[in-house]
């Protein structure tokens, strides 16, 4: 509504408790290495897709862990699955399976499935 010449700005705050983290839980249950990410960003730095567009697996996984799923839904489709991230990950996260599971969870519309 623009009655007063301005509109309400939506807050940026992550409301952890009211967010839905089913997607992250689904991925974590099927690929436990999802849990051991230390946010170093190697995956994003090596990423073939990230070379051309805003795509960061590091960001995607943290958003899911916080339940900010909407920001991931479309982004996750950009991945080409080339696998460079898997090779550079210092913790040995099975990144390709993480991405496939995220895509699968969105496709299946996972909610409180785990």
């Amino acid at each position, binding site marked *: 509504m623009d009655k007063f010449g301005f509109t309400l700005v939506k807050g940026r*705050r*992550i409301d*952890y*408790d009211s967010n839905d983290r089913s997607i992250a839980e689904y991925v*974590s249950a099927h690929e*436990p290495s999802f849990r*051991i990410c230390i946010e170093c960003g190697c995956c994003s730095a090596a990423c073939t897709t990230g070379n051309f567009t805003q795509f960061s697996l590091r960001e995607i996984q*943290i958003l899911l*862990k916080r339940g900010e799923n909407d920001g991931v839904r479309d982004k996750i489709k950009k991945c080409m699955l080339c696998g460079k991230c898997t090779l550079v990950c210092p913790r040995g996260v099975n990144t390709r399976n993480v991405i496939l599971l995220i895509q699968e969870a969105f496709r299946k519309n996972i909610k409180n499935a785990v």
Partner: protein
Amino acid sequence: MGRRVVVIGGGVAGMEAAGQLARRGCNVTVFEKETETGGHVKNWFHLFPDRKDSRDVLRYLGNKINHNNITLFTGIAVEGIRPSNGSFSVFTGDGNEITADAVVVATGFDLFRSEKKEEYGYGIYENVITSADLERMFRKDQIRMHDGSIPGKIGLVHCVGSRDEKAGNLYCSKLCCVTAVKQAMEIAEHLEDAKVFCFYMDMRMGGAMYEELYREAQENYGIGFIRGKVSEVAQNIDNKLIVKVEDTLTGRPLKMEIDLLVLMAGMEMSEGGKKIAQSAGLDTGENRFFKPADLHFASNESNIKGVFYAGTCTMPMNITEAISHARAAAADVMDYLDKQKN
């Protein structure tokens, strides 16, 4: 006699130094201000990184200090040291004076008084506790909220009183990160259904097996790690704590309800140590800890010849380091006494 040594403090470093000196034939007097020896370790349940029971360490130290050459005074604090004719007069809180050829200062550390981080509401919100409070709960095997109910969501705040100019401490206490990880895992073990979160600025897991512990906490215990220092804590109408933090990895502020918040209090120069420093003219650093004569090769020596430092009175240390430091102090004392003789 020429081999009279006073050890100030009966914690880890004091006990280890006293034991080493006694075995080398010194006549050692230990003053401990509390009624029992053992320092902070006796308030701790399990120790990182191997989850050893703290009582094992106390037993080891107890054996060390149980020596014919050692006289132990508990419940007596040392107030000052004064050099006199190549030896020292050590003044105690109960008005006595004792002469020593060398002094080992092992006054240890105090935990940061978490009340000073007002925004966390320690002492105001019932369910904000410190890492030391939590260890007591572990010992009782009862992790409970103030009203006696079992907490479902527990947060651990790293760097409380460390790396914080506003709290007066620029330095890193270096052990709080690993303590938090250890405690998070222990909570998860005690309370199966609990969700545990660590709020950290950096994960400083520099010691042996620390990083492995961190990984285990992530992988097998499902501990959540949120990078960002808690900025403020409030309470809502259901008496739940509301924690505000920036999730710096998403670049967005985050709000979370928490049942029990544990503050990982940092390490500070002890009050007793400050008093001695002032009265004896011992140098202290910008961090208020005793300032060793040299950080590289004289970390046990003070600015007064014959007065030595052992353990966490010089900087935050873990038990391993404190024991090593105490042994080095004992070696320095022996060296000094031998030279004095000749």
